[in-house]
């Protein structure tokens, strides 16, 4: 299987994770494998609750202590197992090597402190710069985010800015320590469509000019298709399909991927009624046997009573669907 070259920054192999709750363990991730190489933009797609954010939060160990337990598999983040790092080492990794852009720009900034203080503080935590140098660096970052009058924004409090402005500030913060990897967790979900496009292009260009790898988490196929080199489709804590964006969009292999694409206006066939994916995610407290998409799949048959493996179905393509696997084998 040929994949883009470059150092592997993040490698998640066969990761299973449960949340212990009073009602029993929720099997949030079930053998997820993915990797991210230097400089590429990787999309993780799926509907709410399918494990996108959990996967990436596990990688940076941001999940709440005590409730999440890794039951199988492992994570290598820059060659280290984040579960084995000390709190101090983790603090170095976070921000310096990998940083995160969150979904809700309205809540991701401290309301009691000025924008400038918050950016400068992050810069100075990880880089040896005096206050003046850090401030001018912060202003430069804001300017890169197409924020006019960055000097004034530095003095502003978060409530004075709009959602789009705040998200740009947060992107500037994420890039401020020149990390090798940025996790963007649905950064455009809370924003309106015109701002979305701007935010996406800002992330894309800044990442390209700094050579930063980006993991872009989204439920929106359209957004991912504009931005990502490769993508992983997650369903109910499993990877349903993986491959380059172009090949997945051109010929989606997993029925779930196809259904996601069919939900989009105009992406595949113009002037056709949009479809919805009937049903809901399976209950992860008590997941059904076999393929987890079986209940919602139109093509399900006898074979789907067994769990399909994530198998190679072509050049740089993998899918977890019996139909596709057998087609590949017989071809």
């Amino acid at each position: 299987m040929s994949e883009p070259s470059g150092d592997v920054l993040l490698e998640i192999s066969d990761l299973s994770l449960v949340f212990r709750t009073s009602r029993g363990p929720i099997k949030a991730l079930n053998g997820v494998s993915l990797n991210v190489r230097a400089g590429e933009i990787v999309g993780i797609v799926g509907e709410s609750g399918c494990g996108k954010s959990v996967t990436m939060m596990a990688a940076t160990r941001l999940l709440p202590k005590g409730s999440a337990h890794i039951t199988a598999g492992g994570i290598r983040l820059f060659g280290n197992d984040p579960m084995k790092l000390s709190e101090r080492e983790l603090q170095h990794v976070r921000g310096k090597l990998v940083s995160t852009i969150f979904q809700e720009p309205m809540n991701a900034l401290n309301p009691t402190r000025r924008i400038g203080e918050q950016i400068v503080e992050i810069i100075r935590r990880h880089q040896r710069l005096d206050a003046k140098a850090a401030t001018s660096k912060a202003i430069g970052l804001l300017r890169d985010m197409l924020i006019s009058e960055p000097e004034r924004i530095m003095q502003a409090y978060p409530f004075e800015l709009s959602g789009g402005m705040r998200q740009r500030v947060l992107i500037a913060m994420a890039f401020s320590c020149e990390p090798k990897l940025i996790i963007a967790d649905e950064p455009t979900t809370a924003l309106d469509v015109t701002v979305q496009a701007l935010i996406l292009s800002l992330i894309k260009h800044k990442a390209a000019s700094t050579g930063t790898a980006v993991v872009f988490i989204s439920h929106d196929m359209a957004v991912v298709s504009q931005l990502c080199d490769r993508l992983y489709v997650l369903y109910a804590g499993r990877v349903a399909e993986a491959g380059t964006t172009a090949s997945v969009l051109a010929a989606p292999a997993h029925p779930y991927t196809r259904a996601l694409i069919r939900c989009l206006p105009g992406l595949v066939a113009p002037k056709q009624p949009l479809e919805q994916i009937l049903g809901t995610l399976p209950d992860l407290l008590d997941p059904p046997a076999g393929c987890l998409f079986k209940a919602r799949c139109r093509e399900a048959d006898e074979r789907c009573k067994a769990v399909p493996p994530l198998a190679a179905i072509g050049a740089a393509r993998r899918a977890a669907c019996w139909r596709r696997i057998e087609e590949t084998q017989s071809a």
Partner: protein
Amino acid sequence: MAVDGIGAPRQAVSRFREGRLWYRVKGSPLTLVGAAIALVVLFVIIAAPLLAPYPPDKISLSARLAAPSLQHVFGTDEVGRDLFSRVLFGARASCGIAFAIVILSTVIGSIIGCLSGVVGGIVDTAIMRLMDVFLALPALILAMALSAALGPSLFNAMLAVAVVRVPAYVRLARGQTLSLRNRTYVKASRSFGASPAYLLRWHILPNALSPIIVQATLDLGGTILTAAALSFIGLGAQPPTSEWGSMVSSGRNYFLDQWWYITFPGLAILISAMGFNLLGDGLRDMLDPRLGGR
């Protein structure tokens, strides 16, 4: 580069802030009354020696229990001390001690509460159960028992009331910490590599502060009452210190014939306690995010 979201000049922003504060204060005259009383009390505490016509301890046996007059605006007590001067100096003991108590219990309570919320687990449980024990006992009884055990003095009374007040702040600060800990900006800061101490100092404490300040202001009135009550039963300020509670206590023997002796210190307690309560109420209305005050 014309993609900027806001175009309002800086000046407009600051004018908006001032306007909003004034608008809110104007809408609530009682808050203004409370604030005015609080300012007067503060002024009296600072300037008592300049305002008082006589030294508070100056005995004048020729003018014992004199009725209010131009010489003695509030009258005199059983050894001829000027009650007006004593009430003014009493603000130092009564309200000064209330400030000290509230500051002490707020600082101690907030620190314990934040730590309890951040550390969690067994430490948290142990601290909170201990606080429950304190809260289970009536505050005044506990304060009486503590100050009696420590020995009657103004300082010990202060310690006793402060200890009794701590659990309320612990609970408040812990609750705030627990809710703030899961805010996105705290998570975001963690994802940028912030240490727990930094999170506490810059993200949790400043944002937990406004309900704590409101609670502290509201408590000032109650604390003035509690401190006066302790002095009234002889567990607080000792004679000849001029303190409102102990003045009321010694004045009650003369209540039927010399009404002024008990009335003026009593009024001082009433008005200052009420003033701080009104101010606290108003502040809460202004700072409470659920009322749209942020």
